[in-house]
């Protein structure tokens, strides 16, 4: 044994040195310049947070892009959604080792611009690949420019809009039919107005015995926020941030009512009080809950499951119903952004490559619409293919009208402190660990502390 081991050890130690030398050269971006130098396709490094059903559609677009030409190839990584993603981006910016392009939430633009993580894209740069600001959903562009003006360079966009996405209600047609909640046209009825909705839930509960409305809340403040914010706006709460300042006056009244509605449902066994996101999806797709209140990004999960034959019921998707004075529903927007790498600024060539990729993605946004989203690119948004896409056409038109975006503030939005406050105080109210008054008071106090 010893005789063999000694030379083996010597060889391994000898291998260590060149390993170090080679290893030292491995950096983000090193490979792509090496590849293009030898004539291979240039690599574009992309970071996204799109796991879930829509992630599959996203991967498809990128694969199609790679297959459609041989000058550029996209190497994409899907990282954990939310805070971890934005923390990683910031660390990467500081280290000067950023991806070339990334997905980014419109709601995180204020925080991202303040942190210096985003590089603005001028209209001229977009025009170099045949795009202009006016090609996109004016609602999204307007909101984005407002943010640019308030926090960064006025007149420039800090990302190219990809979509608007919103909170919808998935429903189990078979159960609804049993409960008499399916109209003659096959669409749900009797769900307008909080009293009718609650009665409908109770009717379903008496039939199935299980919890009728599934909503994720365990380790998922984002879902709780989406529901609460929707109810808050439907109750007329209005803007939570105006001109960069927080406007929290109505939280004690309107916000309390919104939370009370959710808590009442939970306590009556009508809303799942403490399940994880994965469980929420699993409960609905296995037919145990009749409704799932979730983002539109689980549409492809349903589509794929139905195609494979693993969905044991007929499903539908509707825009979130009007429960109070209006039908406002939470919405956000995915953008494609370029990180602001000050240590190693993006070269003009790479920028062109990235814009080429963005242009391709936008032109093929119909695939992205398969992820349940409302594309931002007008030619696709207004096209007939989208109008015929099922189940998108069941909810998209209405959802676009109801879309109410996150407050413009570094405190609100994905990966921002407000979600922590939701998780700390609103979620425990659902499980009865905090009273609604306590929860709202503490929630408001924490939001105020963030504003400093």
């Amino acid at each position, binding site marked *: 044994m010893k005789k063999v081991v000694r030379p083996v050890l010597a060889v391994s130690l000898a291998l260590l040195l060149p390993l170090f030398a080679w290893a030292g050269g491995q950096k983000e971006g090193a490979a792509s310049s090496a590849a293009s130098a030898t004539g291979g396709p240039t690599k574009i490094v992309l970071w996204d947070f799109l796991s879930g059903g829509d992630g599959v559609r996203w991967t498809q677009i990128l694969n199609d892009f790679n297959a459609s030409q041989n000058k550029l190839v996209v190497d994409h990584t899907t990282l954990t959604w939310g805070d971890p993603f934005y923390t990683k981006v910031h660390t990467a910016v500081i280290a000067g080792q950023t991806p070339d392009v990334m997905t980014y939430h419109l709601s995180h633009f204020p925080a991202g611009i303040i942190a210096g993580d985003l590089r603005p894209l001028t209209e001229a740069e977009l025009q170099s690949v045949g795009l202009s600001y006016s090609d996109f959903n004016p609602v999204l562009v307007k909101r984005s420019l407002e943010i640019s003006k308030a926090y960064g360079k006025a007149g420039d966009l800090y990302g190219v809009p990809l979509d608007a996405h919103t909170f919808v209600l998935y429903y189990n047609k078979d159960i609804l039919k049993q409960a008499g909640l399916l109209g003659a046209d096959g669409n749900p009825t009797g769900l307008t107005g909080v009293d009718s909705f609650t009665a409908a839930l109770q009717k379903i509960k008496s039939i199935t015995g299980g919890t009728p409305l599934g909503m994720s809340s*365990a*380790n998922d403040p984002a879902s709780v926020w989406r529901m609460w914010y929707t109810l808050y706006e439907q109750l007329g709460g209005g803007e939570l941030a105006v001109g960069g300042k927080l406007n929290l006056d109505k939280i004690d009244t309107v916000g309390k009512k919104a939370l009370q509605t959710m808590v009442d449902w939970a306590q009556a066994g009508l809303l799942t009080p403490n399940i*994880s996101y994965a469980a929420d999806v699993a409960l609905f797709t296995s037919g145990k809950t009749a409704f799932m209140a979730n983002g539109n990004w689980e549409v492809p999960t349903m589509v794929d499951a139905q195609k494979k034959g693993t969905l044991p019921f007929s499903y539908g998707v509707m825009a979130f119903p009007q429960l109070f004075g209006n039908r406002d529903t939470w919405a956000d927007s995915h953008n494609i952004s370029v990180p602001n790498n000050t240590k190693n600024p993006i070269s003009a060539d790479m920028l062109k490559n990235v814009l080429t990729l963005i242009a391709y993605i936008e032109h093929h946004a119909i695939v992205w619409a398969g992820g349940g989203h409302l594309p931002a690119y007008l030619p696709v948004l207004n096209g007939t293919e989208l109008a015929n896409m099922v189940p998108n056409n069941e909810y998209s038109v209405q959802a676009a009208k109801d879309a109410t975006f996150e407050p413009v503030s570094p405190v609100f939005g994905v990966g921002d402190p407000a979600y922590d406050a939701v*998780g*700390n105080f609103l979620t*425990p109210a659902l499980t009865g660990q905090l009273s609604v008054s306590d929860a709202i008071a503490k929630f408001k106090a924490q939001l105020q502390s963030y504003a400093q």
Partner: protein
Amino acid sequence: MTPNVEIADPAPRAPARRAGRKIQSVSWRTIVLLVAPFTIVYLVFLIYPTLRVIELSFTNSDIAGVGHFIGGRNYQLLMKDPLFWASLWHTIYFIILTVVPNTLVGLVFGLMVVRLKRLRNTALALFFLPYILPVSVVTQIWLWVLDPNFGIINFLTRLKINWFSEAAWAMPAVAFVTIWWTVGFNVLLFIAGLEAIPREYYEAAALDGAGGGFRSFLYITWPLLWPVTSLVLLLQLIAQWQIFNQVYLLTAGGPYNSTIVVLQYMYVRAFQQQQGGYASAISVVLFVIILITSLVYLRFVRLRGNT
């Protein structure tokens, strides 16, 4: 005795021989070449950061190193920071839930396994296997096993508890996973310690009619095992003060920040909120706590129990 400072002379010199002393004819160059690499690594990557973290704690540096001196302001804020104190209590709670229980469980399993002859290695491997898995594999497994809706534990026990999402159960669940993961280490050490106790002691006690079982455990095993037991306790104490991985991966500090621990809070302030100076203050406080804990432990606990 100082070394011969002549450099690079490989020719053999007549060795200076003194009874019981080492032979000296080694050049400084050789000594430096032998000692320097590790010493440099040690200085640069342990000593320097330790000094720098103290320095940083008096600044308002961000995570890019940009900032200036602000005196003791970080510490003042820290003393009034409710989340910091909460993270401290949570860490202490975690320590209470793991240090002694893990040691006891390790001892019990050690006593069980050391009796076996042919099956000992198999049995030890069963308890030790979790220990060689990476922490993230362990947490992924337990997140699934303890899944509230579809996990096997809730199925077998008919419970509906959301283990990592209910404030009452979250920390105990994390503690249990920690014990599952690391008890093998303790079992191994206890087996080594138990094996080192000479059989004659037990035989002598049996001859004296002292009886077996519990009494021999109390009067022979426990005292002779004490060096191992106290070592296991100390190692765990130091390790669990620095707990981060399991909490971050299982509960992320939730639910509602009820399980956030000190090191995690440091991470949040440093990398999520980009406050390097403040995070350094937290680090320094943690360092001091660990230092004091170890010294107090060594002074009072290890001194006792010398049979």
